[in-house]
């Protein structure tokens, strides 16, 4: 038995985590990450992402929890198992890298090879430094390297002990934009040769979407939803998740009735009725949050008077126009009692053709299949 840890009752390859704590840093999180999978933990700062990662590494102890990696129990507060960090097979990249300043790049990597015989360490460290494209810089000290080079040393050191899990705590936050993109590409390439679970903590949703197979959205230590990026953006489970993902066009309505034959659920929205895709999971009379994807907000081809009769047409007054490259981000203040604003992108030329200016009245249609209903989660 490696490290003398107990065998898990349910041996599942990869990492299985359950963390609970009331305070001072609250945690309520269940995670699973398969070998070769990259799971990104995203959330605003203070959401508990780093704390969760530290629980896995053994640097922080939750009130109750279980951390099981392959067949080894690292933490089980129920049975009193709590392995110290050096006996958990984790590799970790710290936000500021935490390289040993008195050691060379090679020394830093070799320092994490206590499991190898002394004579093998330097050869293996050289291999890893080559893997992260640092060959030739073996004898440099951290202070003599750029931020990007230091980050690569940190990655090589994290891999040096042949970890069963790789933990990355905001690994790209301390470098400039251009270096960040390059390091992200390198990590994407690296993960293809890794067959271990990788956990990536980031506050950057784009980074999480680019590198993660699945994303776990955290807020106040709670895991709100775990899903692939596309699904998360199209179908967030709650308005809270939608807001954390920076989605717009979130409204409140009430389910009026279902019409299974035409595949429609009718939604009462102020004085309007919105026709959404059939969503039988929601009961008639239930108050729901709903959102419409920006891409499903379509400028109405007809003039304002006929537009009002079309499906899900909404008339509003342009309140802001922001040019973003080839597109124009339009914010529309809805001119009816339910109020609120709609935000969507339009090709620049289409916006010009439509003669969009601030304060102009404008009609749009909400595509039925871009409307997503979310259950209201009672706030405790």
């Amino acid at each position: 038995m490696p490290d003398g840890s107990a065998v898990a009752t349910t041996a599942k390859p990869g990492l299985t985590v359950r963390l609970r704590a009331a305070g001072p840093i609250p945690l309520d999180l269940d995670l699973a990450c398969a070998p070769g999978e990259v799971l990104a933990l995203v959330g605003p700062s203070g959401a508990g992402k780093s704390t969760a990662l530290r629980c896995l590494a053994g640097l922080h102890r939750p009130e109750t929890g279980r951390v099981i990696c392959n067949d080894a129990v690292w933490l089980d507060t129920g049975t009193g198992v709590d392995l110290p960090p050096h006996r958990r097979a984790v590799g970790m990249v710290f936000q500021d890298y935490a390289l040993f300043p008195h050691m060379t790049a090679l020394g830093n990597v070799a320092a994490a090879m206590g499991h190898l015989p002394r004579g093998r360490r330097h050869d293996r460290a050289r291999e890893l430094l080559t893997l992260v494209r640092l060959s030739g810089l073996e004898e440099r000290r951290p202070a003599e390297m750029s931020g990007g080079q230091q980050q690569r040393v940190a990655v090589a050191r994290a891999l040096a002990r042949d970890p069963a899990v790789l933990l990355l705590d905001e690994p790209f936050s301390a470098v400039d934009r251009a270096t960040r993109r390059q390091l992200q590409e390198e990590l994407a390439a690296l993960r293809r040769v890794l067959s271990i679970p990788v956990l990536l903590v980031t506050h950057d949703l784009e980074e999480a979407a680019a590198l993660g197979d699945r994303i776990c959205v955290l807020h106040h230590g709670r895991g709100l939803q775990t899903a692939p990026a596309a699904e998360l953006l199209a179908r967030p489970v709650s308005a809270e998740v939608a807001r954390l993902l920076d989605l717009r066009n979130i409204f409140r309505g009430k389910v009026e009735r279902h019409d299974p034959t035409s595949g429609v659920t009718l939604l009462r929205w102020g004085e309007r009725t919105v026709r959404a895709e059939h969503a039988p999971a929601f009961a008639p009379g239930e108050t729901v949050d709903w959102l419409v994807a920006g891409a499903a907000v379509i400028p109405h081809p007809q003039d304002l008077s006929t537009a009002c009769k079309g499906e899900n047409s909404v008339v509003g007054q342009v309140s802001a126009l922001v040019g973003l490259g080839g597109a124009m981000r339009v914010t529309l203040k809805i001119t009816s009692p339910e109020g609120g604003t709609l935000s969507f992108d339009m090709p620049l030329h289409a916006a010009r053709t439509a003669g969009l200016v601030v304060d102009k009245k404008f009609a749009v249609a909400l595509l039925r299949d871009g409307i997503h209903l979310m259950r209201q989660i009672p706030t405790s």
Partner: protein
Amino acid sequence: MDWTALRLSALLGLCTLAILLPVAVWLGRSLALRRFPGRAVVEAAVALPLVLPPTVIGFYLLVAFGGRSPLGQGWQAVFGHGLAFSFEGLLLASVLVNLPFAVQPVQNAFAAVPKELREAGAVSGMSPWSVLLRVELPLAWPGIATAAVLSFAHTLGEFGVVLMVGGSIPGETRTVAIAIYDRVQAFDEGAAAAMSAVLLGVSMVALGLTSILSRRVGRRTVDA
């Protein structure tokens, strides 16, 4: 020049370091990294020799070493002679009096090692012992060396406490600082001047080393 006294002082300094440094590393590191109840009391107790008159310290040590204290009785029973007015008693006193000079630089040096480096060592598979030897000590050594230099120089110069607990027994407790005093009392200004010059030189070198080392501590941690 009283060579016996000089040799005795050097021996006392080295023996003090041999005992004091491990204690100071353990105590200084604990004070720097751990939060435990009574930490402020321990810190104050360590600093006490800085503010107490040497005669007061000497008096209490003399009482503690004497035949009526458990320590003095125990020592007598085991070694067959009293602790007061012996080299061993002088050594013990020297270790205690030098605690602040050794603990404080060590404490500062360990406090300057970033917490992430210790954590990085642990997640790199190093045991706590290995983290201490391979990460903390290499980064904190200038502070430890400063502690050694300061303690050694201070041991050579200690006068009041030595006079109180050691007296002035040649070859046993008469250190160079006591010898200088004796020579002045005997109007032997030549010998007093020579020995004073030696102590002055040692102190200058010690302070020079300390200032070089303390600059190193800063540079190391900025690199991190």
